[in-house]
């Protein structure tokens, strides 16, 4: 974003952010437009890359198109767009449980059955997660599929904020993922708790460490080729 002279700049559009009217360059995001206008503090911002979920906003269009919710760091500006900061506080969820199933989920989140299928959560999700369908999968105990659904969840909290029935979709999503995650056996990790070092290991470390820097670089290069002392 260099401060190019305005003379031959790209075409501009007018948008409103928190009631303030600003000129924005076509093709830039809401956040970049705010920076340019000196109004960066109007919308809480984090990663500027669409994965932290800080810059949640609601949108409205003059022509009556459906506005809804989005991330200001990913949303390109449009003529006449009205933007409202819509920060959603994070929520500490219940701790995960090993070997989760339908009953454990229901005991942890009695609200799961409250869903009235309004689909607000799915519409609100900036990551295109089928949130409501996934809540229905939670009711049926299809937890592997739920974990897959929430692979891309950034925990912006929008699905929770717009839920009329206080169902906590993404809070359940990470609970399912963590609960499944800590229940998986990883044979590859079982050996990692050994505390004694084999002779081969000791020899290899000796070989890589007990020499001067120049020699070490040569030895490391050779070691990479064979995966052991050449």
């Amino acid at each position, binding site marked *: 974003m260099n401060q190019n002279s305005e003379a031959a700049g790209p075409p501009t559009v007018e948008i409103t952010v928190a009631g303030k009217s600003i000129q924005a360059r076509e093709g830039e995001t809401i956040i970049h437009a705010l920076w340019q206008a000196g109004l960066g503090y109007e919308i809480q911002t*984090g*990663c500027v890359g669409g994965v932290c979920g800080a810059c949640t906003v609601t949108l409205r269009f003059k022509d009556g198109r459906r506005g809804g919710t989005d991330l200001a760091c990913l949303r390109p500006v449009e003529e006449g767009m009205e933007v409202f900061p819509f920060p959603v506080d994070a929520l500490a969820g219940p701790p995960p449980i090993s070997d989760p199933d339908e009953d454990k989920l229901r005991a942890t989140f009695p609200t799961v059955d409250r869903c009235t299928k309004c689909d607000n959560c799915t519409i609100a999700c900036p990551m295109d997660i089928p949130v409501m369908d996934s809540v229905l999968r939670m009711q049926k105990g299809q937890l592997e599929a739920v974990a897959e659904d929430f692979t891309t969840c950034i925990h912006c909290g929008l699905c929770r904020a717009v839920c009329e029935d206080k169902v906590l979709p993404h809070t359940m999503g990470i609970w399912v993922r963590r609960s499944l995650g800590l229940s998986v056996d990883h044979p590859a990790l079982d050996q990692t708790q050994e505390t004694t070092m084999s002779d081969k290991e000791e020899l290899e470390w000796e070989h*890589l460490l007990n020499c001067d820097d120049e020699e070490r670089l040569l030895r490391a290069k050779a070691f990479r080729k064979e995966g052991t002392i050449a």
Partner: protein
Amino acid sequence: MMDWAKASLDKVEQTRAQRSGQSAPAISDDDAQNLIKEYHPDYVGSERKIHIGPNADSDAFPMELADLLESDSPVPKDFQPNADIETDVLIIGGGGAGVTAALGLADSGLQVHLATKLRLGDANTVMAEGGIQAALGVDDSTRRHFADSYVGGHGKNDTGLLRHLCEEGPAGIRWLTHLGTLFDQNDDGSFRFRKGGGTSTPRVLACRDYTGLEIMRVLKSAVMSSATHVLEHHAVVELTDDGKDRVTGAVLWNTQTGQLITVSARAVILATGGSGQLRLQGYPTSNHLGATGDGLILAYRQGCSLVFPGSHQYHPSGSSFPEALVGQLVTESIRSAGAQILNVNGERFIDEMTFRDVVAAGIIREVMEGRGVETPTGRRGVWLDTPLIEQTKGEGTLAHQFPGLIHRFKRYGIDPATQPLLIYPTLHYQNGGIRIDAECRTERTGLWAAGEVTGGIHGTNRLMGNSLLDIIVFGRRVSESVRHNCPERGAVTLTRLSQYRDALSGLPHKPEATAPQLYPPVSGMKFELKGMPTPEVGADASPDDVKSYEPPDPFASR
């Protein structure tokens, strides 16, 4: 969408069949070194020495960082630190390293406060895509991991720190899985390893192209149900000392109320991360809003030296089009999966899977010698042939393995499954940083550091997947060290700052801005005191101090 590049894209299409399955252009060690020396941004002479502090008149610093190190503090000269909060441990930074340290201290009996400038988890960790290394594969070993990282770091790595990184990698992964982290698996349930640039065997664990997100959301979820006191929207603007050489707390700036508060702590852990938002030499960055090197400035004022302060990583594949995505990361694993890098003529010119600094230098050379592609806004880049993956690995591969990539570009009418992406190096990682020992102690008693803010582990070039491992391994190590060596409480003064200010007044020129910078200048956001006497600072405050207009809720029926 990309009609302006049609001629060049046609060549990419025409050469695809012939390039498919072809081995990468070979480059000798010597040629690679020369390429870096000539074209890598670390070596183009955009540096200077500084004349104050532990590294005075020795190392060369990037201009932008040098200016900040020779800048005054934003803390008013008449500010008297009085402990508003007393705690045992103050962790500064809410990314992966800080949160791992907090979790490591959760059952220590020590009271822990974690202060973060943005929100908990809004950090470079959450943006990491490609993966995390750990020597868990069948043909792999911790020594092989060491050798790869050491060669990648040009043999400049601190061997003691690097050995810890590699040896404690598997235990770090075990810890993450116990917290409930899900890594990609093969059909038989074993871990699925990817190759990274410069790994001699597949060693990178991933969660699609959202590995950092997966790790950060698990860490965040875990720490939120711990006893850690999290102070969001609190930026550190100064460290306090006991009047001698011990760090005893910090002065924090509440970014929402504009007020300063002082924290007295027996131990301070700096986990403030990197400095990509300094946008060295005008490069775009893949980093989050707050990556302005704050921790470097503060530790330096306390007398901590910096190692390899001039070494930064320019990730070879930053997005160069569309304009809204400029600088954003296109994960290295896309090259690991087979995407080739091509010039304007559809020709390969660099081994896509060699070390990052070599690939970045190769791209810069190609563009400087006129074989790049120019966008309508005047940016330049080279092609990353993503459709090739769909052709060689089957349709739908990108959507399944790289959902983040697809999602990000879709908004701009670009489908990486059918459309090559334009890339150019982007400022990605701070290789150097605060000097630490194996227990993450800095050169000042009472001050520890972990994560990207530290230097030495990665030498002068880091391998893919070693930064996520770094924050886990050293986040755990720092918590162990603090748990067993937490000093008694000391006096809270700004003696070091006064001494630094005295030294600054002896410099021939004085930068006007204050440091830490806290936000990138491009954002227009800056330090500003409110609700207390403000001599000089913030004199040009804008008249926009009005409350935000409250919006109607589009889902108002609830």
